[in-house]
């Protein structure tokens, strides 16, 4: 084995090492996606665009896209806006930071199904929250926090905030604290340090966090059914795709909805990453080491 062959081409070694992984992803990720794309243009009846024109003309369908945006955009902004100051606050490595991050990991791994079941028990009309509020006469009326739009927002914050927090925290801790200390020596307040040192360095990381958090919220599924109102106010696009595939067995239509969904996410991701370049002021990896 000479060094030059190992450098450039696909030697037997490389093929043996990467081959299985590439083959698997081609078979079970690229092929289904390509097949779905093709399938979406071959509807059971009508022209090749029939599925897409049906989606955008049937209010029951196009509304799902709007509802999904109405849910995902505010929730993502809220999660990132909450996570940023809290991650900044916990930027120093302490026991407190370790415990906080460990506690915040739990809601992520519990998953949306368990969060939904917990919300139904805890936030329900006879749950502890309702009892607590009426005990202190904060609010005596019936509380309606589940089986509606708000219920889905709450569940997306519970699962999405820790995700955004952990991501931003890993960016914040990647910035060398020496920079902030230098600024502090020159009399910068914590706010000024944040505004003039952390924020510019964090901008690319915030854009990535926003994209990943948005994509996660955009594909909301179990909580929209379990704590939402899946027949109306929280009929999200993933639900429309699922119903087309597994209730009407119209795989062509289901693929079309999945493609529209993927395309809509892509638009937001590209827009945010484009904005990122407008704010770009330094190397994306921050000022590590």
């Amino acid at each position: 084995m000479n060094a030059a062959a190992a450098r450039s081409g696909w030697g037997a070694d490389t093929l043996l090492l990467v081959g299985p992984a590439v083959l698997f992803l081609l078979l079970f990720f690229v092929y289904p996606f390509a097949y779905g794309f093709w399938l979406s243009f071959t509807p059971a009846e009508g022209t090749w665009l029939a599925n897409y024109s049906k989606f955008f003309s049937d209010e029951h369908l196009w509304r799902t896209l709007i509802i999904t945006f109405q849910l995902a955009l505010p929730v993502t902004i809220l999660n990132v806006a909450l996570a940023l100051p809290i991650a900044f606050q916990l930027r120093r490595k302490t026991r407190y930071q370790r415990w906080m991050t460990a506690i915040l990991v739990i809601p992520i791994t519990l998953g949306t199904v368990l969060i939904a079941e917990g919300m139904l028990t805890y936030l329900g009309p006879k749950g502890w929250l309702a009892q607590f509020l009426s005990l202190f006469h904060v609010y005596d009326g019936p509380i309606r926090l589940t089986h509606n739009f708000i219920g889905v927002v709450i569940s997306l914050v519970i699962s999405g905030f820790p995700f955004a927090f952990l991501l931003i925290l890993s960016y914040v801790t990647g910035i060398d604290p020496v920079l902030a200390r230098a600024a502090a020596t020159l009399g910068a307040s914590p706010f000024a340090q944040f505004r003039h040192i952390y924020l510019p360095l964090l901008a690319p990381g915030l854009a990535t966090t926003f994209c990943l958090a948005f994509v996660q919220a955009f594909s909301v599924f179990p909580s929209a059914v379990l704590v939402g109102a899946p027949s109306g106010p929280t009929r999200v696009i993933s639900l429309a795709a699922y119903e087309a595939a597994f209730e009407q067995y119209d795989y062509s239509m289901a693929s079309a909805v999945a493609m529209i969904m993927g395309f809509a996410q892509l638009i937001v991701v590209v827009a945010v990453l484009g904005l990122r370049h407008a704010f770009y002021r330094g190397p994306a990896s921050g000022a590590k080491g």
Partner: protein
Amino acid sequence: MNDRRHWIYRAWSGLLLGLMTLFVLNIGLMVASVATNSFARRWLGSWLPEGYTTQWYVAAWKEFQLGDVLWVTAEVVLTVVALSIAIGVPAAYALARKSFRGKQLVMLLILLPLIIPPITYGIPLATVMYQAHLGGTLYGVILANLVPALPFVILVMTPFIEQIDPTLESAARVFGANTLRIFWHVLIPLLMPGILAASLLVLVRTIAMFELTFLTAGPDSQTLVVALYYAVFAAGVRAPQSVDAMAIVYMALTLVWLLIALRFVNPTQLVSRVKDQTTAGAH
């Protein structure tokens, strides 16, 4: 002036601490109310139930065939972990050490399943699987779960491989070892901490993976999280307490592995492996 600034800063810190406490407290109470309900004899509108019983766990075990579901979950999760490590570690090694034509393209191929949400590619994937008669079977569920697990292992393993001194491999080559022997005798022992971390992370993520399992599972190939979804979905039919009992079993299962995982890995690793790659690839 300085005093006022200090005061504002203190108030701001207090506000943030308050927000965090509120968040954690409510989640804690949420979990506690599910746990209380799962042991409740009768609990209607009072602070605590009238009595306690374990009958709901017995009921959940029988009604939801929890034994079978747990067995399926174990089969799926362990196979996914084993396969993703077996395929992912060599691929991560090649991506960390070798440069070859189309490497950027391979990186993109590996990143995409982590950036595109499961429900978007899960629907075409399920369609293909049902046509290949894999849909509804255990194999289908395993293969579907492997799609995000494999890229995740590759991204988690890459930094571990980069830490290993390449002269060790060169030395082994000088003594005539081929790639397979180098892998088995040099790399695997050195990579053990990384492999352990990746396995635990994939394990926790696969237990919680709802969408792909939901789309590809049949009645005999449901994992615990999907069975829980159906139980909550059809809640009117069954006693809510036995649904909660099932939720507690699910939570216990995840938490045990999560606590083990947290001993070996940084919590941010559960979510942030993608980010290094996306920012590195973007410019």
